[in-house]
């Protein structure tokens, strides 16, 4: 059994409260891999329900949502990945796997933090039945990876391969879209370069 190496108090917006209050949440680094199986089974069930509700409401279904948690768990245990999770209301609301080893940037000669995997709980998405439960999960997770990059002396530089339906989110964050990557399932590759990451952190109210 492993334990998180750090816990930071953050806020999420309660999307179902009448006045959309900010609620306390926690972001954990070194989240235990033993939780992945539980998360995947709980989220798979919720995904199925929200897909049905979304189809009934005429929304486009989310593709490619199923992920291989077993591979991720092995990799976390082998020390290749660090899991970062946001918890609120007693359960994980989003999870991210970051490579511990800095990777080369595709836009400069420098290195960056590579985010290998990110996902928000299905009930936090617009496709779910009704309003998203909590808002800001993606913002918190990406902000935490920028913080990691800054702490590692990588200037906030960050890279990731976005799924097509998430590209709007990463563009909104101000990341540069490098283009589709034929070496990685043709997914679009995004990077935070130069001052983009620190400017974005400032824009969301976090001091770099």
């Amino acid at each position, binding site marked *: 059994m492993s334990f998180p190496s750090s816990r930071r108090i953050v*806020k*999420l*917006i309660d*999307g179902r409260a009448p006045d*959309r209050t*900010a609620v306390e949440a926690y972001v954990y680094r070194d989240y235990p891999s033993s939780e992945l199986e539980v998360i995947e089974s709980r989220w798979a069930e919720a995904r199925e329900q929200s897909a049905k509700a979304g189809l009934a409401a005429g929304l486009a279904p*989310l*593709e*490619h*949502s*199923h*992920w*291989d948690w077993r591979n991720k768990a092995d990799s976390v245990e082998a020390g290749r990945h660090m899991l970062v999770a946001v918890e609120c209301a007693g359960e994980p609301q*989003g999870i991210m*796997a970051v490579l511990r080893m800095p990777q080369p940037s595709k836009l400069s000669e420098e290195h960056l933090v590579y*985010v*290998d*995997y*990110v*996902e*928000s709980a299905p009930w*936090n*998405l*617009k*496709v*779910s039945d009704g*309003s*998203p439960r909590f*808002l*800001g*999960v*993606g*913002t918190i*997770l*990406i902000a935490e990876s920028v913080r990691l990059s800054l702490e590692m002396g990588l200037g906030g530089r960050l890279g*990731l*391969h*976005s*799924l097509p*339906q*998430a590209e*709007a*989110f*990463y563009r*909104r964050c101000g990341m540069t879209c490098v283009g589709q990557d034929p070496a*990685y*399932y043709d*997914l679009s590759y995004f990077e935070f370069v130069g001052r983009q990451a620190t400017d974005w952190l400032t*824009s*969301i*109210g*976090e*001091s770099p």
Partner: protein
Amino acid sequence: MTKTSSENLFRQAAEEEGGLPISAGARVAHVRLAIESGRTIQIDLFDVPEDKRTALIAEIKELVRRAGLRATSADVPPASEAAKDPG
């Protein structure tokens, strides 16, 4: 920056996120599609002792590299044949 203004900035960002998907990283479906289309291979190393996996992966990569070279040279006519073709 005051606490209130930073909270407002975060609120604004969170509202803009507004339940957009944030998914990054390949899913099972991407891997399956790549295998089916012949663009990638998947090898289960579960039964291979951990200390031998790195060497085995290196050997597999080398085999794939050589096969790629062979395929490329088969696509391109030898220099002598190309020279015979006026164009």
